[in-house]
């Protein structure tokens, strides 16, 4: 693969270390590869979605050290040493993450394409502990577009799961 064969004069691939979904991973990445492309193309973790590649839709939201970020706006090399959680890393051995379960219960999606980003974003929001009113939740979830328009159900799912998550105080 030419991934390992940069054109003459191009910078060499970099080695980075990630704690990815609880697993220590030593990875070789090109300096131009985004975290999103690393996940989707190189590691086959296609749960993280690409909707715009420009940080405009939120479908690629993942958690980095518990904070939600648009993985399309971060180069993979910038996350060397970080703890990255994707939608694939949320469910535990005992079943779905409370936010995932709430999304199913409230039918908080239709096509499912924005869903991983919505869920990661909602878990990140729980960690931030900033949004308390319904309008604050709406505002702080507005970086995640849902073209199907499942917003009211997404909001209901988040409101349902938040008390449980804040009780846990974990960073997923």
């Amino acid at each position, binding site marked *: 693969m030419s991934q390992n064969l940069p054109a003459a004069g191009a910078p060499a691939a970099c080695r980075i270390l990630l704690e990815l979904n609880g697993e220590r991973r030593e990875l070789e990445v090109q300096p131009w590869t985004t975290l999103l492309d690393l996940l989707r193309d190189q590691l086959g973790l296609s749960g993280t979605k690409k909707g715009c*590649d420009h940080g405009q839709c939120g479908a690629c939201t993942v958690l980095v050290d518990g904070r939600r970020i648009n993985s399309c706006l971060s180069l993979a090399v910038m996350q060397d040493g970080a703890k990255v959680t994707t939608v694939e890393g*949320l469910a535990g051995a005992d079943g779905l993450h409370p936010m995932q379960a709430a999304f199913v219960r409230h039918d908080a999606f239709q096509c499912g394409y924005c869903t991983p980003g919505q869920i990661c974003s909602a878990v990140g929001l729980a960690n931030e502990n900033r949004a308390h009113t319904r309008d604050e939740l709406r505002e702080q979830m507005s970086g995640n577009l849902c073209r199907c328009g499942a917003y009211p159900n997404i909001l209901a799912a988040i409101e349902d799961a938040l008390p449980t998550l804040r009780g846990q105080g974990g960073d997923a």
Partner: protein
Amino acid sequence: MNTLAAPVGQPLARVDGPLKVTGQARYAAEFGAPGLLHGVVVCSRIARGQVLRIDAREAEALDGVVLVLTHENRPPVASYDKPYQDDDAADGSPFRPLFNDRVLYSGQPLALVVAETRELARHAASLVRIEYRQEPHQTDLLAVREQAHEAPEPPPAPRGDFAGAFAAAPVRVECEYQTPVEHHNPMETHASTVFYQADGGLLVHDKTQGVQNCQRYLEQVFGLQGRIRVLAPFVGGAFGSGLRPQYQLPLAVMAALKLQRSVRVELSRQQMFTFGYRPRSLQRLRLGADRDGRLQALAHQALGQTSRFEDFTEHEVDWSGMLYACDNVQLGYRLAALDVYTPLDMRAPGAAIGVFALECAMDELAYAASVDPLELRLRNYSEVNGNQGKRYSSKELRACYVQGAERFGWAQRPQAPRSLREGNQLIGMGMATGVWEALQMPASARACIDADGRLQVSSATADIGTGTYTAMTQIAAAALGLPMEAVEFRLGDSNLPQAPLEGGSATVSSVGSAVHQACLALRQKLLDAAQQSPASPFTGASLDDVAFANGSMRLKRPPYTALALERIVGVSGALEAEVRVEPGEQRKNWATATHSAVFVEVRVDEELGTVKVSRVVSAVAAGRVVNPQTAGNQIVGGVVWGIGQALHEETLIDHRLGRYMNHNLAEYHLPVQADIPSIEAIFVEEHDSVVNALGSKGVGEIGIVGVAAAVANAVYHATGKRVRELPITLDKLL
């Protein structure tokens, strides 16, 4: 017969929910293979002209770039129109990607750069130089309104004497409305992954609403009959964008055939603006009424845009001839050709914009006649579709008005505009009616119960988020009295029994009917099988004598024997039934439609002109609802679309360049979470024994229809200002 028992009608969680919330649901660009190549499309920078030269030397020189495909080196393709005419083709000559050197619109695909990685392909695509001979173009509908022609599919014929009745009417309204180009923008961009098989056949993962439509298209265009299989188990939204094969599909296939390797082509978000869209429209409404607001005359003329190669038509003005009682009606629909791509069906095509204009005009009439807008609609209520002269098979629109109004608190609304405010917030309430066809298309389904008693039902339909997997599982489980867990529904595979395009709110009606009938046919086979055993208590029993419930077949008469289906197939082995269901003959005597009443409250900042929708109630009559939870989600989604149409969405074109300016998700404004208030969807009870055996009409479109008008009417009520051009942005209110 107890064929529509639970779980039909229950608000069950989606059967595909766990896959979607864990990231395991895989979409068209998420299937891989060792050595998979990646293609990136190079699009035209001019709107009309000719490609003189494509210089790909710099791109081809890069290590890892495998191919730069253009009209000069592509594999052979069909040249006549017919092979390109898919199931949703418009009249005319379909676009043929990489066919020749002609440039028909800005954004047209002119080359595909194929490389070992997507990043490399993208970089290489930026190095492809194209020389053009540019020709003058026209992309502005307003500039060509005098050069329009009749649409090939004309609207219903005039009835009565519009001109005479309009001239004589004591109350008259005459207005012009404009709606902009809108793009579908599903969250998943269009993509095709083509696996080149050892035998030269192709296994294709495509983002589509019709796997068999794409299969036929590829077979015809490339002469590959019987060698194409198309899969689409999950589709990340479409709203009509997947009704026709989009150009990434033939491009990926061209590359795969030329290289004899597997190739994926994913479009960028920007490229999602380089094919079909909702066309811009100009509409003129003339309503004449008596002093009580009863319609005496109605004329609705629409002008829509189309491309120079196809005439795209939709039902835009037809609704005005069927929604209300009126004896003197004149409908007109013309098209003007521009140097643009052909428009494409987009959620509630035609109705979303045509009913917007009609329902705004009705609001204007309500004020002209000094009648409450809801009362005006009741005075003009019709039990008959005036276009067809047929009664509706069912029409519980009156119940929608009553229940919606009560839930919303419409009775408290003062009629005068600008009569409600809170500080600098002007508050307004508006309403509108919605209508959509209740279609049924021929469809097939197969039901197979295996020796373990598990039921597998299948049809080549799609689930674009509409809940097809879940609804079909419910219908099948109900028909055979099995728990949901014992039933699996498969879709999105062109090898499965025939299904129509997943669109037009017709999937439950069409495919659901086929699933239902296939399961009923399987009942007969189960009964036959049970009767094979000697001294069977079922000997001599007909289907009317047995019930299917709790996983068993039970005699409804003494000795009331119940036999688990598992035990029947344990002896007989797997049983299978496949049926094809055509729309019933009885439909021909009736008009069939879904209806809604939408009530909207807005808050308009008096100083800033910002509009915020603060409350919506949508009451819908759609026959039997298979799953109130997923169907309710469809209605709410439709309302969100209507809010976007009313306040946000508009694809802006720079007519000097003939190209879109806001082709991204930051500048093409979609509603976000903060834009959406509480939305209440109500399904009124509606019984229909005509539409299909399920009595179910479908809900994918009806949610959006009328919403933009209700918002616009609420804005008028808040501010006293009529905005007749969508979207209603703050500059139009200040």
